[in-house]
């Protein structure tokens, strides 16, 4: 039963998502597919950070009547870790910006060579 806790399950999910994302980045030849793999890797890392801050049986870090007058009578025993959530919040928005930037580069590359296969871009290869 210990292996079916939410914290452990989400940890395994995030590890597998990161590995799938790396696999896609390394094995795909199409630039758009590489960017899709990058977004999956991004999601995996965010899930990993949030799942490290999760504590079993606690609620969201918002202080209201249900937290301060709950059965524990103490904020410290009622909420999950707020710091990873604050970090991931900005990381998601940055991830969107990076994805948009990568797509703009991909569009520029496509205009230059009319192809998206990564093997065709060998100008600097020697």
């Amino acid at each position, binding site marked *: 039963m210990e292996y*079916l806790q*939410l*914290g452990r*399950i*989400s940890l*395994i*999910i995030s590890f*597998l*998502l990161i590995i*799938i*994302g790396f*696999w*896609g980045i390394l*094995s*795909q030849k*199409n630039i*758009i*597919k590489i*960017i*899709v*793999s990058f*977004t*999956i890797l991004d*999601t995996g890392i*965010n*899930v990993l950070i*949030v*799942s490290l*801050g*999760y504590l079993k049986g*606690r*609620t*969201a*870090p*918002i202080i209201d009547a249900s937290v301060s007058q709950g059965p524990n009578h103490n904020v410290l025993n009622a*909420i*999950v870790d707020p710091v990873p*959530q604050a970090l*991931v*919040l900005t990381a*998601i*928005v940055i*991830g*969107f910006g990076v*994805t*948009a930037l990568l*797509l703009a580069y*991909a*569009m520029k590359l*496509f*205009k230059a060579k*009319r192809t*998206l296969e990564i093997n065709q871009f060998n100008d600097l290869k020697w």
Partner: protein
Amino acid sequence: MALFIGVLVLAMAIIAILNKKLSIAVIAAGVVSLFASVLYLLMAAPDVAMTEAAIGSGLSTLIFFYVLNKIKRYNG
């Protein structure tokens, strides 16, 4: 519940990598983000869940489709 979402997320991620059609891959990546936001909600992170649902699965997928549309127009 979390196990079910986890299997779905991983299946969608593998579809996103392996499928030959770019549009299906992009939609599968959007679904990965959507289920990840449900996972955030289960892990008591409603702020992160809102951001991921709006940005990861909505706006990212939209700009991917703008680029795909452009490429399709060039090719034929």
